[in-house]
């Protein structure tokens, strides 16, 4: 025999009244699921265009998802593939680089990016980072920036947990704690340094790819200015600032110049 609720209502009815927060969460989830369903439908449609060789239509459909404010590694990967098929190497590399930010460990992506880069007629010189920085970068580049943030957060929790244990029981297990705190602290410091570099690059340097086949990089931001050097499709550069239609860029070797905005794509 069921016991009636204290207010004489059916429990099912009272859930939403009692838990408006739950209602909001469910609504938000439902909305997110609908959005995700739409994006997925659009994605499959774009894939079908790709399969039938209609690469421009495929790119439009992929970009439509991006315009909705959603992004994913696979979306950028496929967009890059479609541009590659159209022979737009610069844009293909741009989208592969965008994908690499989100899915850095994807083997297919690595292979495609490497292949696309190998097709650049005048490949850019790659400057190697010094030993420890290169090693650290190599390790942390295995994470996307959110993954790295979560990793650092876990280390942060671990360190604080160990610090709490040290406060409570430090006298008894001093040696083991010292080693653990030292190891966790070292990892935390290294990861944080790498994270800071990544954030700095993303926020202040703004990496970009040259998408024009050949772009004049001038001393000043106007048409008749003297050309300093020429950038080629697929070159990686950093955008330092922007002024109307022009962007001030820096090459990995440190040379800076102005280039038209439509010749580059920011990652």
């Amino acid at each position: 025999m069921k016991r009636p609720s204290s207010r004489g209502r059916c429990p099912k009815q009272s859930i939403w009244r009692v838990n408006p927060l739950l209602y909001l969460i469910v609504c938000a989830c439902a909305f997110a699921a609908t959005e995700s369903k739409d994006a997925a439908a659009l994605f499959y449609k774009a894939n079908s265009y790709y399969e039938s060789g209609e690469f421009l239509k495929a790119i439009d459909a992929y970009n439509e998802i991006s315009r909705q404010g959603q992004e994913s590694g696979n979306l950028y990967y496929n967009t890059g593939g479609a541009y590659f098929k159209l022979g737009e190497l610069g844009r293909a590399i741009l989208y592969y680089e965008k994908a690499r930010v989100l899915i850095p460990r994807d083997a297919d992506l690595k292979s495609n990016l490497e292949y696309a880069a190998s097709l650049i007629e005048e490949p850019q010189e790659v400057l190697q980072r010094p030993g420890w920085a290169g090693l650290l970068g190599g390790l942390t580049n295995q994470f996307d920036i959110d993954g790295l943030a979560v990793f650092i957060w876990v280390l942060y929790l671990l360190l604080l947990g160990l610090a709490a244990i040290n406060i409570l029981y430090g006298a008894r297990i001093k040696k083991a704690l010292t080693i653990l705190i030292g190891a966790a602290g070292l990892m935390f410091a290294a990861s944080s340094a790498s994270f800071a570099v990544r954030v700095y690059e993303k926020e202040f340097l703004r990496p970009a790819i040259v998408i024009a086949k050949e772009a004049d990089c001038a001393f000043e931001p106007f048409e008749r200015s003297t050309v300093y050097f020429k950038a080629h499709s697929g070159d990686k550069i950093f955008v330092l600032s922007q002024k109307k239609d022009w962007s001030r860029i820096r090459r990995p070797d440190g040379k800076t110049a102005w280039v038209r905005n439509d010749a580059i794509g920011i990652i």
Partner: protein
Amino acid sequence: MARSFVISVILILGAISYCGQSCAKDINFEASVDSNIISIGESARLALTFYGTQDISVPELNNIDGFEARYIGPSKVMSIVNGRVSNSVTHNYTLLPLKTGDFELGPLRFDYRGDTYISNNIRIKVIEGPREKGEGPLGTASRPDLSSRIFLTMSLGKTGAYINEPIPVTIKLYINKLAARDIQFPVFSQEGFSKADFEEPKQYREALGGLVYDCIEFDTRIFGTKVGGFKVGPAEVTCSLVLRRSGKRARTPFEEDFFGGGFDESYFDDFFSHYERYPMTLKSKESAVDIAALPSEGAPGGFSGSIGDFQFVLGVSQKDVRAGDPITLKMSIYGNGNFNTISAPKLEDAKGFKVYDPQVKTEDNHRVFEQVIIPESEDILEIPKINFSFFNPRTGRYETISRGPMPITVQKAPEAHERPKIVELPHRAARGAGLERREPLGRDIIYIKDSIGRLKKGGPLYKNKGFLIIQLVPLLALLAVFITRRRAERLTKDVRYARLLRAPKAARRGIKKARRCLREEKPADFYDTIFTTLRSYLGDRFHLPTGGITRNIIDETLKAMRLDEEALKKLRELFDECDLARYASSRMSRERMNNSMANLESVISYFERAKL
């Protein structure tokens, strides 16, 4: 000055030489043991003490009847009593009893620098040790000494064998109610033999002569390399006996652990006992074995020294090939014998084949040879017979097992433009055959992804305010842990602080109780509560002994603190009222009680606010 220095030196030298002479005359030599009754499995501490000197080298103790002695080290004592200096040196030994009985040690003689020193006698009784519950007389009667409690045996599987024939060797370490540690693998003399590695030792119990032993068995195999009669062994095993220094209790410490002797009051004896490790080497008896040569008659042509009782299985990778294609023969030899002596079975006639060296793989009881052969022309119809010859020591004869011939189909080799067929080969064989795969490979991008993957909306996580705020939570939690811990530590160490914290809480409880008494109109209880509350509060607040707090405290202690006179007056009144109520509680009216209640609250509130 110089003169007095010379005189001082002469006096000191004279004193030293006098001391030296007197020491030589007054040295006493005394021997003692820490226990006169010990049991087998225990040890005793023997101390040889030389009084009157510290300059005596270590006496050697050899051939003490019934004991084995091991030197531990010296200890020196120097004392000054009433200006008289006395010194001594003691050389300590561990005595390990080897058999039961009554023994007399000494008198021990020791010659040193031309003087002979003679010690006293020591009597030591070595007993068998206490019986275990339920142990019969046979057990006690048959363990008279240490050699029957721990010993080593070695046995050979055969006393006669052919050259290279495996001979099983079993070495067993028997231990009865003793604790042995650091047991090493056995070593034994094996001249004229080669030896395999020892297998994993086996541990079990074995009854021998009415006693149950813990047995550790080491198994290996030896192979005769020369013809003739040889001795194997003696085997030697080194280990450490864990012995309890003799004392009240005559049990070994591991009897309970290993033999389930039960738990009794002697647990505490064990706890306070001292144990020591006594390294020892156990030797077995040696064994004789005759090694015979293989018979010279009847050895088949393909015989290459394989000895044992074997089976031969042949497998072929494929039977339908083109000329130039490799065929892998898998030849497996199973059985008992010396696998190290086995060489690959041979093709009787390899004409028309290109033959590569076989690859060998040996496991527990079989050896596998993989050999690549390549038919050179399409005229070949079969793989020829393959023979494996060995000497079987069980039958005492040479035996040959033949497999094949095996029919195969060899087709014509492909033309130059045709792509060669590649089969999986052992790497080395393939390289030898020149069949490495080289082909041009095309390249393009890898195909698009089928699913959209993890969709992301919004900026990176490090810009998310919620994520940033949540970082503060564990930090605040850590701060709370730190503050709580510091407070707990201070409460433990600082009694004054602890009492200060306790004071207002206790006062609140007291006031609550007083109010209840007031409501119930119980003047005696009311004033009793007020008095207790005041005493407890003032004691805790000013860190004074609670029991000694009376009205006098106002003049003796509180007045000096320059407190508000009005508050002190109220306090005095409260103490007076409490005194009065103790003797004449019926005179306390409701109004007076209300007044006292207000005074109590006012006084405590004042003390809480006052900066003291």
